[in-house]
Each structure stands twice: as structure tokens, then as C-alpha cells.
């Protein structure tokens, strides 16, 4: 995904589709996408299948969601993460930020 052609804002907005339940430690108020410890522990598959080895939860994300999670595993700085996303998707910075945070919010149900 990282080296793929730029995606549209609409494609980016189509984020997680999932099964299961749970809660998350995401701190949207501080505008961090994912606490790095949580992001790093996730097992990510090319297919978009995501497994959390601590909670036992699994769910699927689309290509854009996978790109966000992969970046979150290596990039703790939110501004840099959003900047890297903007390099991959054909959308405004504001759209990227809004949709990334929306994605993080939706993940609350799947990641502890």
C-alpha cells in the first residue's frame, strides 16, 4: 500500500469492516492515532485481516485501513503519520486527518 498509486479520498474513507467487540485506549483528545504499544502488537496480514494477540479479537480492514495501521506501528508522531498518508492518498490534509481519526474511533470496538 505504501508504495501504491495514490488513492482517492472516498477510497480512504472506506475504512474498517469488522467482526467482534471490545474497547480501545485510543486517545483522540490528544490526537494520537494509536498508542504505539497497541499498534505494534497487532498482527497485520496482506489480506487486511488483523489480530490482536492480547485481547484475542480479530477483524478486517480495507487497503486504506491497513495503510494507517502499518504506519501507526512505526510512526508515533501523528503529524508525520498524516503527512505520510497524504503522500499515498489523493485527498486534502484535512480530509486525511478527519478520516484517520474517524478510523481510529471506529477501531475502539475492536482493540483493547
Amino acid at each position: 500500500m505504501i508504495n501504491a498509486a495514490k488513492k482517492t479520498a472516498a477510497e480512504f474513507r472506506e475504512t474498517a469492516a469488522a467482526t467482534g467487540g471490545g474497547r480501545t485506549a485510543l486517545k483522540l483528545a490528544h490526537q494520537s492515532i494509536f498508542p504505539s504499544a497497541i499498534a505494534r502488537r497487532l498482527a497485520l496480514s496482506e489480506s487486511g485481516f488483523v489480530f490482536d494477540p492480547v485481547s484475542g479479537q480479530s477483524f478486517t480492514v480495507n487497503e486504506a485501513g491497513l495503510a494507517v495501521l502499518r504506519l501507526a506501528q512505526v510512526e508515533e508522531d501523528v503529524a508525520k503519520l498524516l503527512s505520510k498518508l497524504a503522500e499515498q492518498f489523493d485527498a486534502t490534509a484535512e480530509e486525511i486527518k478527519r478520516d484517520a481519526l474517524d478510523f481510529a474511533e471506529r477501531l475502539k470496538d475492536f482493540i483493547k
Partner: protein
Amino acid sequence: MNLTVAITGMNARADNPGPGLAVARCLRESDAGTRIVGLGYEALDPGLYHRGYVDAGYLLPYPSHGEDALLARILELHQREHIDVLIACLDSEMLSFARIEAELNNAGIRTFLPDAQQLALRNKDRLPELGERAGLSVPQTQSVYQSAFFYGCEAEGWRYPLMVKGLFYDAKLAHNADEAVVAFQRIAAEWGLPVLVQSLVPGEEVNLAGVGDGKGGLAGAVMMKKRALTDKGKGWAGISIYDEELLQSAQRFCAATRWRGGFELEMLRDEKGGLHLIEINPRFPAWIYLSAGVGRNLPELQVKLAQGQRVLPLLPAPAGIWFIRYAEEVIVSLAEFENIIVRGETREAGELQCA
């Protein structure tokens, strides 16, 4: 030399199986040469007849018949089967086996059981005390002897919904006093008094099966998150997980009690991430075959410890391995069934002719 291991808990109702058959399956995969003797209490315990995992099945006297009867029966079976190791798998028999452990050892039957004091410490009505000793959070828990408690408990700070639990088995969620009284009466009739009331902690249950080395250490553990439940709330499917805090809780439990043998921790992770101890089972859980599935065969480990072997603590098990339970039918000849009914054993006698 091949071992003979006797295993109790051969009951296996589809919605609430005993652990015995799963323990037998673990040991069968550990060493195909191990002779496995299944011990049960009912003629319809399917593990007694399951020749894939159990070589011979025998009935035991009910725990209510007393420890002398239990010891006499085990020693009688020992003369025939030369039992090397015995693994007890049911809560209701653990105290009896702990009390006859010395006699069993003298006869050459090794066990690796918690003693009576350790068993008492993990009783549901003493969980708060254990929690304090081990540094584990425990939901508010109280013994209840009269159903009238439930109509006045809100004045004492309790809030509905709450859990009503039996001393050995069973738990019901009660949303009001009327529901709580019904649960109290049903559980008291089946399991006796006291009945326990426990505050409800909203959250996700996580489970750990482990083996304490009897010296304060955790010899091995497998962690699991249930992913599908039966109507009784028993795990029908689950997945192995790795939760460092859960593992540390088990280590603290073993250190505080010097636990000896298999156990299961049932804990809840609340919405803020806190971990709370809701129950400790003093034996392997029915899902113990997952331990063999993730390469951390805990019944095998217990057999080694029972034999006095030195073992290194097992490394953490890999996360992401599922179990999905299924039910199957065991075919039993009339002769085998006759032998269980008449002699308490599955050894086939002469042909029984049917019209």
C-alpha cells in the same frame, strides 16, 4: 517404561464437558504408549468408553460416600492397573483426593495436587482474602445464607445487576431481587449453602490455564479468550492470547499460594483496562486440549512434576491458535455398558444375547 495415568472427570455433556477427556487427549498426544485409565461417576460418562483416548474405564464411589470408600476403590484399581500417576479433574473431588494423597503416594500412585489449605484459599467465598494476599483485584464478594438478603442488599451498597454463584459451580446474572432469589434457591438446592453474591464488573473475560510447581513458581501457562459460548456460558470456541498482565496475575497467585498442580484463572478486563479475578478453578479446564494445540502440553507437564522430574518453566505459548469444540457420539456395546452397571468397569465379559 510406559506409564499408566488415571484421570477423573470423564463426563462430557456437550454443553458442559468435564476436563478428563481433554486431559486424556493431551496425554495420548504426549506419548502414545501411555496407558490411560478413565475414572468416572456415571455409567453415561462417555470418556469411560472412548477407546481413542482411554484404555479402560472404571466407576468411582460418589464423593458423598467418603474418602475411605474412594481410597479403597483407587487401591483396588491400582492392584489391577498399576497406576503411576493420578490426575483429578473435578472441583467436587479435589479435597477428597488431597486428603488421601499420602496413602496414594505410599501405594506408589503419584499425584500433584494442591493441599487442603491451598484448596480452601481459592474457595469462592475466600477470593477477597486471596486477592489481598496475591495483590489481585477481586470484585466485591459475600457469602449469603438467606434469600432475604437480596431485598435489603441495596441498602448495604450492592447494586443490581449482580452475580449469584454456587460454591462449586454455576453462576446466574440477576437484574433484580426477585431474579436473585430464584437463582439463590436453585443454586442452594443443587450445590448447598452458602451461595455467593458478587458485584458485576462489565468487561471481557480472559482465561489462563496453568500448572503451579508447588514452590511458588508457575511452571507453564496457556492464555485464552473465549470467542463463542454455550447457553450455559461455557466456551465453545476460543483463541490463544498473550496478555502479560494476566500472566503476571497467575505468577502472583502461584507465589502467594505455592500452588501445586493444574488450575484455571478466570479474570475480567474492565472497560478501563483493569484486570479482576472472578474465579479460580483448582484443576485443568475443559479447554485444556488447547495447551497441546499450542505446543505447551500442560497435563504432560503435570505428569512430569508428579514423577518428581525437574522441568524448566515453559515459554509463553503463541497467540492466535483457535479451538472450536464439537460433540461426537461414542459407540458402546451392550456388554461394556453391562459391565459398567454391574462391575463398575468397561472390561468386556461374555456375550450378552439380545432377542
